[in-house]
């Protein structure tokens, strides 16, 4: 025991710097920053300090000299009994290592930033970045088996993503936790900086205001600053949802969707296709979710955009020569492929004319590729995540098949335009695995006993007679059994949810999530005890690595293990975002 204590003391001494209290510096230690990209610098001291005691140096020089601007001193931050200094929108025009030392009284903090340059000339003209929200290995495997089939242990066909050339494992953790969400993960891809859960395009500071956090540059901003490329976003979620928002926005709180919609409008992406029209409508219009009179529909029209609100209008709009296309197909999130195309459940009765990810991606490619300077298109299959949360694996997997078809379009485009970098990935993972099959034909007296594992799993009997890539039906007699490794209390029915997306748990009067009794009497349903806190409504994101795949110029830089923020650097280098490409 004494030996153990001695070891502990030694390690404590080794790993803790001997400082009374430490300030926090944003950007955080080990930040990687694109050369000449604007960012905010903030130092948060632990206590109230005197302005005259504050010193901030960069590589030994006064920060104001290196950064070209003076710090603003805040004696007491709003709602915080402590001081801070900040400078907004600084740039570092030379690549290199920058050591920042902030001091005030007994507080001292040292961080190091790496400012990276890029080649002068781009290797890629276009980037198509496809992200299936929550894409885990189980989704891919299930999509391949469900879509292509498997016999004698070999897949009977390949997904489009299966033939991308390079791959990397991506670490998705956030700045304050191993765990992660779609805001900080996509923000890392789209800014090159890691951040906190719920945050987009900012480092998360300690003040309550969700709009005052230190900003970093987003991909859309960098493209506007350095290139004449077009920018497009396609998603099946609301266009203000975390993943598409991360291309543009700056906020600590992803829920600030009305404000996010303003940020998107400021950057005017050439193509925007998805849901979330509620945040485009002024508050007086029933269906609006704004709290002001801003009318983005009118503003976009005045800015020269063609508007499409249905599948057929999108088809017509594809031929538009304005080069600016706004497609809004739902007030909220769009329905899943399974509901939209096959079951007609969810909200399809209210919004029957929704296009799918494939049509939206094709239209976006058609419109964006008319720009001779090139384009960056972000495509998100949002429902892979939105259906994995409520443990509705069939819907999540069918949307993964749709996602793969969008990757197919990207590959077709790249075959004709080889100066196109394709990245296909998830933003984070879910705790899900395929553990075998459920076999209705098996002679057993309960659904649980009809689960086949190991040799008994056999092969599922999905069919795709019409060759559209989707199984003709998902409720076949021997189907894949996907199981979550976490979740709230719920009933496992061992069957696809043909009447609408699964609602596993409901909140009770004590604020705890309990199993939804609506599934209790489904024949064979068994109660599954939850293993996350009862405040959790659905399954949670996993901390597991994401598998990223890529093809095209620059793709060879994706390899081994990479932090999610490193992905931005590969894109920045491929597009030479360190070099000014406009006059």
């Amino acid at each position: 025991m004494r030996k153990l204590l001695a070891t502990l003391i030694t390690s404590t001494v080794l790993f803790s710097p001997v400082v009374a209290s430490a300030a926090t510096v944003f950007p955080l230690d080990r930040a990687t920053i694109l050369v000449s990209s604007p960012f905010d610098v903030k130092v948060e001291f632990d206590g109230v300090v005197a302005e005259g005691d504050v010193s901030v140096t960069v590589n030994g020089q006064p920060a104001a000299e290196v950064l070209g601007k003076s710090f603003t001193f805040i004696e007491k931050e709003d709602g915080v009994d402590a001081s801070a200094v900040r400078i907004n929108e600084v740039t570092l025009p030379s690549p290199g290592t920058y050591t920042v030392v902030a001091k005030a009284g007994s507080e001292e903090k040292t961080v190091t930033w790496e400012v990276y340059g890029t080649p002068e000339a781009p290797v890629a003209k276009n980037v198509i970045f496809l992200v299936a929200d929550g894409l885990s290995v189980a989704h891919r495997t299930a999509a391949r088996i469900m879509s292509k089939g498997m016999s004698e242990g070999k897949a009977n066909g390949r997904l489009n993503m299966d033939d991308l050339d390079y791959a990397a494992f991506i670490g998705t953790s956030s700045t304050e936790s191993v765990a992660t969400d779609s805001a900080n993960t996509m923000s890392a891809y789209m800014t090159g900086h890691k951040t906190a859960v719920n945050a987009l395009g900012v480092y998360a500071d300690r003040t309550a205001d969700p709009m005052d956090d230190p900003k970093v540059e987003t991909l859309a901003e960098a493209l506007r600053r350095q290139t004449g490329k077009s920018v497009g976003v396609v998603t099946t979620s609301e266009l203000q949802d975390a993943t598409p928002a991360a291309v543009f926005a700056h906020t600590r709180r992803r829920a600030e969707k009305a404000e996010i919609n303003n940020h998107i409008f400021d950057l005017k992406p050439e193509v925007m296709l998805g849901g979330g029209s509620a945040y485009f409508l002024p508050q007086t219009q029933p269906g609006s979710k704004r709290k002001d009179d801003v009318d983005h529909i009118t503003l976009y029209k005045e800015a020269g955009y063609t508007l499409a609100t249905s599948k057929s209008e999108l088809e017509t709009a594809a031929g538009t020569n304005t080069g600016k296309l706004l497609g809004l197909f739902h007030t909220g999130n769009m329905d899943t492929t399974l509901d939209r195309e096959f079951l007609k459940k969810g909200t399809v009765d209210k919004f029957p004319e929704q296009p799918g990810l494939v049509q939206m991606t094709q239209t976006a490619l058609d419109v964006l590729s008319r720009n001779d300077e090139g384009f960056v298109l972000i495509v998100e299959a949002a429902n892979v995540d939105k259906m994995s949360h409520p443990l509705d694996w069939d819907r999540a997997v069918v949307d993964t098949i749709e996602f793969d078809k969008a990757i197919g379009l990207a590959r077709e485009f790249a075959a004709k335009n080889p100066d196109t970098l394709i990245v296909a990935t998830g933003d984070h993972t879910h705790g899900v695995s395929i553990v075998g099959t459920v076999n209705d034909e098996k002679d057993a007296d309960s659904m649980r006993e009809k689960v086949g594992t190991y040799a008994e799993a056999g092969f599922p009997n999905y069919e795709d007679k019409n060759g559209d890539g989707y199984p003709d039906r998902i409720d076949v007699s021997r189907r894949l059994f996907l199981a979550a490794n976490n979740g709230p209390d719920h009933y496992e029915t061992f069957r696809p949810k043909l009447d609408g997306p699964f609602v596993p748990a409901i909140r009770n009067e004590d604020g705890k999530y309990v199993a939804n009794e609506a599934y209790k009497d489904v024949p064979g349903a068994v109660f599954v005890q939850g293993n996350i806190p009862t405040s959790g409504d659905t399954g949670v994101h996993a901390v597991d690595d994401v598998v990223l795949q890529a093809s095209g110029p620059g793709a060879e830089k994706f390899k081994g293990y990479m932090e999610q923020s490193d992905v931005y650097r590969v894109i920045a280098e491929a597009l030479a975002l360190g070099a000014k490409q406009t006059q």
Partner: protein
Amino acid sequence: MPALCFDRRRMLAMLGATAMSFQAGQTSAADNTIAFGQLYASFGVLGLTFSDKVKELSGKAVSMRGFMAPPLKAEANFFVLTEIPLSLCPFCSSDADWPDDIVVIYLDRAQTFEQANGLIEVRGRLEVGSWTDPESGFVSLLRIVEAGFHRV
């Protein structure tokens, strides 16, 4: 994939949401009971249109059946009524959002909320039109005010 055939028995076995909408559908259009399906004449990307029934009943005593969404806090004078039970809590989860067709219920007095896992009936006076709650900042289009509710 061709259209799937529905397993009728399985559908009926699903209680809760489905059962609720069947019950709501049985109410007569002539009385002051409003079903969720009767709130809007049309749903569109560019907005929703109130139904004639809602316009006629504006300012009058009405009753509605639905589910209490997870409340903002245990004791309050308002809650959100939804057509189907919500698995996500838009008040507490930043990646959840409200469905389009919600009705905000303002009670005649603040009270502690009970079991949200079941159908309730709300009675009160219907208010139509955009209004921002000065206390919570919550914007609503349809409200039942001076309301009371009970389990069905």
